[in-house]
């Protein structure tokens, strides 16, 4: 129950318009992991894009930091039904990382330290829709939230925003990832409640 006029907070529009069906808004940032938090040293960290032809494009931590940074503020939506509005991040756009990559692929399989994977169409990583982020709310991204770096694809359910990201494999054929092989939706649009295969 609100005791102040919604306009008091100066939002662009009512927060309820920004909560997809079946979701609730939280101020918390729940920690959900499908496995142990990997211990990753920055001097051994690397991010690699591998094309369907097997060509590898690799960035060290310092090389990633030298690329232009962006600071997106976005709403995130977890399939376990929480949403968090106006989260602010710092990272490098996938448009920058994919700029010089020659590919005819339509699909991407994201790989993480610790073995996690998730799949999505390559188009969903382009045109300002996705980042490799290493900063959260003005500080470094904490390990339990995917640090040193995670993928951020806020227009899809948050399991697509792989924690501890280490690379992206570009594919001509779609290949299901960790949760997708266990019956989760191949695309995962929160506004269409695509939680599970067939939704």
């Amino acid at each position, binding site marked *: 129950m609100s005791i102040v006029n919604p306009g008091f907070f100066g939002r662009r529009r009512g927060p309820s318009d920004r909560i997809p069906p079946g979701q609730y808004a939280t101020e918390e940032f729940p*920690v959900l992991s*499908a*496995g*142990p938090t990997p211990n990753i040293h920055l001097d051994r960290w690397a991010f690699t894009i591998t094309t369907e032809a097997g060509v590898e494009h690799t960035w060290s931590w310092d090389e990633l930091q030298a690329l232009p940074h962006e600071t997106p503020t976005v709403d995130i939506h977890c*399939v376990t039904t929480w949403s968090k509005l106006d989260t602010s991040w710092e990272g490098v756009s996938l448009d920058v990382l994919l700029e010089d990559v020659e590919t005819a692929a339509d699909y991407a399989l994201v790989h993480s330290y610790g073995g996690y994977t998730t799949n999505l169409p390559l188009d969903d990583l382009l045109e300002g829709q996705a980042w490799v982020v290493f900063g959260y709310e003005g500080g470094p991204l904490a390990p339990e939230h995917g640090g040193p770096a995670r993928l951020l694809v806020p227009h899809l359910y948050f399991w697509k925003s792989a924690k501890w990201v280490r690379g992206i494999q570009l594919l001509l054929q779609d290949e299901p990832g960790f949760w997708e*092989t*266990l*019956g989760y939706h191949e695309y995962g649009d929160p506004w269409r409640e695509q*939680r599970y295969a067939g939704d």
Partner: protein
Amino acid sequence: MTTQHEYVDGNRLAGPLADVFAVDITAASTSCIGCGRRSVVAQLHVYVVGEGYVARCPGCQDPVLRYARTSTGGVLDLRGTLSLQVPLPG
């Protein structure tokens, strides 16, 4: 935010896996494809994400058993398990 214990023990699987198995699966034993270690299901390290359950080998941390309740039914993945030994009554 304080970091909570990341996983719980395999007894957490008793309820969800009663969807699938008629026996108490937490008393069964599994052998891990990754490292060969045999574990009682109750000893596995279980990561709970909503209605998704990932049970990992205490030796090598590979997933040996995964289960999810989805909108169309339960999905069980045993690809990390070499064999599952179930105690039989009698």
